């Protein structure tokens, strides 16, 4: 099917968007692409999917620019576009059944599950994260989170937004955000305190050392 050219949308300053370097879109892109890529990478867990999401986000922002009323911060508006785009993109793909996380599943049932089974003793989080295996274990735990919980954890704990901002982005109450965040944190904690994790960690380190 042949595609047709679309006129650039009007912008609040009365100009249409075009690829010229002085255009508002370029400023929007320049100012926010790094933050959006970081967000997308954290949601998707890999570079190509993150680039697809960034492209989709800015394309939607480009098309909706004339409807942006400026009553939210531009970054909040972009986060909201990216979050919706992520949900749509994932819906197109099959798999990853969404499940509800219940608090009772995070109550430890044996002695070994209270502490994390990863080496953090005496280290700052930054120092601990210099360890590649630890980064991988953390990333895997976050990737295993059902999407709606991962979205909240990423926005709140990784992007550093307030519960109110996250609520505005996802169209949920602060109470719902806090509830999802708590379950998401407990899920990741449980993954990092798993019985097999210490063995897995030491096996991986031994493999790397060899």
């Amino acid at each position: 099917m042949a595609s047709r050219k679309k006129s650039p949308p009007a912008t609040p300053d009365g100009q249409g968007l075009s690829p010229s370097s002085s255009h508002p879109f370029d400023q929007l892109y320049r100012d926010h692409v790094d933050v959006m890529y970081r967000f997308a990478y954290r949601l998707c867990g890999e570079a190509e999917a993150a680039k697809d999401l960034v492209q989709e986000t800015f394309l939607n922002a480009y098309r909706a620019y004339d409807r942006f009323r400026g009553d939210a911060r531009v970054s909040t508006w972009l986060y909201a576009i990216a979050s919706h785009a992520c949900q749509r993109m994932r819906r197109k793909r099959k798999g990853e059944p969404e499940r509800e996380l219940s608090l009772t599943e995070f109550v430890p049932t044996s002695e070994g599950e209270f502490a994390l089974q990863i080496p953090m003793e005496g280290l700052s989080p930054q120092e601990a994260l210099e360890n590649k295996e630890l980064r991988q274990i953390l990333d895997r735990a976050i990737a295993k989170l059902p999407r709606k919980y991962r979205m909240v954890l990423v926005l709140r704990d990784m992007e550093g937004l307030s519960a109110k901002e996250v609520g505005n982005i996802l169209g949920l109450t602060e109470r719902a955000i806090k509830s999802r965040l708590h379950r998401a944190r407990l899920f990741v904690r449980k993954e990092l305190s798993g019985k097999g994790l210490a063995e897995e960690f030491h096996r991986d380190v031994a493999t790397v050392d060899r």
Partner: protein
Amino acid sequence: MADRVRTYPGTRKPTPHQGHRKRNCVKVLERLSAYLDDELSGEICQEIRAHLGDCPNCEIFLDSLRQTVRLCQHRPSPALSEKDRAALRRQILKAAATV
């Protein structure tokens, strides 16, 4: 008269979840994120601190949750290269020009 020493049945070596009901642990567990994020009233914080002082496992659990949050907060994320940034911009503008 010698001081009477009160003894309590079962006060041997402290073990987890002794001296209080386990459901208190669950009640505390439900509020640990709010506790870490400083969202609770002083009274509830005090109750939680009292419980933590009594229950070593809940104290360890809280530490592990705090460490988890800090790891998430400090997990670095890769940056987009200059080349990818320019390529993405071109693709977006190209896609925007077509329907």
